[in-house]
C-alpha cells in the first residue's frame, strides 16, 4: 500500500455524498407521489395472472436504484404452456 492508496482509503465522504444523492432522488419520488414500484409490480402481475396461474410465492422482485436509470426486475415462474392451457380452460 503506498501513500496514495492510504489517502484514497480515507476519503469516504464523497462516497457517502453520492450514495445519498442517488437514494434520496428515489425516495423523494416515492414519498411525493405514489409508490411507483409497488404499483408497477401489482399491475404487471395482474396482467399476467389474467392469462396464466401465478404462484405469488414464486415471484421474485429485484430493484436496483441507479443514476441515471433504475431497473425493476420481476421474475415470475410461469407453468409450462401445456399446464397453463389446461389451467386456462379449467
Amino acid at each position, binding site marked *: 500500500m503506498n501513500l496514495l492508496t492510504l489517502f484514497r482509503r480515507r476519503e469516504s465522504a464523497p462516497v*457517502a455524498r453520492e450514495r445519498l444523492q442517488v437514494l434520496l432522488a428515489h425516495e*423523494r419520488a416515492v414519498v*411525493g407521489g405514489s409508490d411507483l414500484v409497488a404499483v408497477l409490480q401489482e399491475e404487471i402481475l395482474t396482467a399476467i395472472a389474467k392469462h396464466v396461474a401465478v404462484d405469488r410465492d414464486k415471484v421474485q422482485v429485484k430493484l436496483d436504484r441507479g443514476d441515471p436509470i433504475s431497473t425493476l426486475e420481476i421474475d415470475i415462474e410461469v407453468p409450462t404452456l401445456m399446464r397453463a392451457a389446461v389451467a386456462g380452460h379449467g
Partner: protein
Amino acid sequence: MAQVVVVTSGKGGVGKTTSTAALGAALAQGGGNVVVVDFDVGLRNLDLVMGAERRVVFDLVNVVQGDAKLHQALIRDKRLENLALLPASQTRDKDALTSEGVTRVVAELRDKFDWILCDSPAGIERGATLAMRHADVAVVVTNAEVSSVRDSDRIIGLLDSKTEKAERGQRIPKHLLLTRYDAARASRGEMLKTEDVLEILSIPLLGIIPESQEVLRASNIGAPVTLANPTSSPARAYAEAARRLKGEQIRVSVPVERSGFFGKLFGRRAVA
C-alpha cells in the same frame, strides 16, 4: 408575535434535546420570553438537560387532558427568569396526547411567550407529527452522516405536508442545524462537508455546532451548554444560531473545537 419552533430530526441521538435547551436559553438571554416544550412523551429528557428533573410536578399530558392548568405545569428556570420548561410525561405513552388538546395548549402558550420551542421525539409517528403540527418555523437537526441526512430529508417532506401551515398552502421555513460537526475530519474527506449536506437537503443553514466535550459536561450538570460554558465553541455556535433564528444576518463560520495538543494542531490547520 409568538413564534412556534419545532426542533426535529427523524433520527434519534443527533442532538435535538441538547439543541432545544441551548437555543432556548440563548433566546432567553437575548431577552425574549421563552418556553421549551418536551413532546417526547414516555421518554422525557429535556427536564434533565435543563436541570429541572426534580421540580416536575405536572406535565404536558396533564395539561392536554385538562388535569392541570398550564401555569401549574410550567417550570421557571432558576438561572433565567424569562425561560420556562413544559416537561413531558414519563409514565404515559404518546397516544395520551390528543390533537385538540395540543392545539389548545399551543394556543395558550402563544399568549404567554415570544418563543415556543418544541422538542420533537425521534421517528415520524404521532409524537413527531404533533410536535411539528403548529410550528411557524422548523429547525432540522442533522449530523453529517448518511442515516441522519436521509432521515432529515424524510422529516423535511413531512414538514411540507403534515403541518398546519403546509395544509393551508403556506410554506414553512426550515433551517438546518448541523450538529456534532468535526471540521478537521470533514476537511480530510472522512465526514460529509457542510456544503454536501446543504446541497442534498436544500434548506438554509442556521448554524454548525462542533462536536465538543462541553456538550456532555453541560448535560452532566443539568444546564444548557449556552449557560454552562457560554464561551465554549458549541455555546457560541448556538448563540449565533439563536440570533439567526431571530432574523439577524450573521455569517456562518465553521467552529473548531480546540482541546488538547491534536485539537490545537487540527484547529489551526482548519482555520488557515
